[in-house]
């Protein structure tokens, strides 16, 4: 995930920015909400994915089980490929 903090209407939660996740599925292609929020057409439309994160990777002090996960919808322009697979 990109670790970026732009101003505006962003639907990428802070808690996953800069974190490592795995794509769970492609949900479809949707107009970009960061543009729609300002009455612009939202083009080019963005592929939307569900990305799965291990909770212990998101919260260093996570108190649940090490296998617990959180899945978040992320638009493609927020994803960065990792150089080494995990």
């Amino acid at each position: 995930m990109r670790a970026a903090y732009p101003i505006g209407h962003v639907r990428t939660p802070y808690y996953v920015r800069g974190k490592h996740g795995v794509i769970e599925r492609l949900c479809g292609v949707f107009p970009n909400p960061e543009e729609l929020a300002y009455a612009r057409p939202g083009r080019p439309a963005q592929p939307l994915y569900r990305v799965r994160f291990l909770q212990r990777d998101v919260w260093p002090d996570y108190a649940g089980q090490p296998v617990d996960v959180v899945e978040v919808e992320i638009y493609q322009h927020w994803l960065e490929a990792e150089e080494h697979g995990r």
Partner: protein
Amino acid sequence: MSHDHDHAGEHTHVHRYPPRPDQDDTLTYYRAMEAAVRELLIDKGVITAEDVRRQVENMDGRNAGRGATMVARAWLDPAYKQRMLADGSRAAEEIGLDVGPLKLVVVENTPAVHNVIVCTLCSCYPRMLLGLPPDWYKSRNYRSRVVREPRAVLAEFGTVIPEDVLIRVHDSTADMRYLVVPRRPEGTDNWSEAELTRLVTRDSMIGVAFAENAPSGPV
């Protein structure tokens, strides 16, 4: 007691309770805009006042019974459940539930996985299938905590998840809406769809509770 009774003339009662404020006493910017646009549309004959009333009634009438019907069908029909997990919106339409533009993702609880839904950014919720979201679903407390300490939050709802069950939190941040298929209760083997539907609560489809247990003895 603070009841002042006027015994001199007519027997009038003055009850000094704190006045309860009306809930419609502030004409906010958006309320004024809504009234202006609605009245303009009615004046120009685009819609009628009855159209507006009917639509409000329709929206208020949506409730968790719709989602429960899908869950009960999934419990009874494994093939339907597979179609539902593959494409929730299409599976809803298949049994005559109009979900409009809703993009539905259905997730299934199993002996190994428990799913719970939140929208940390606002209050995204499958209103077409569950009705209006409960107030706690929109609270900052639930939204900020269930995503980072789901086991503790679920326990506060009385829902204790065993340590060997994986918890999967779904954050509904964008265009998808989510429905949980809770586990089918024991002792319901020969139940009809209508009977099963009664065990499927709103909270069990958000994932903060289990489906109701089958009462012991005949239903």
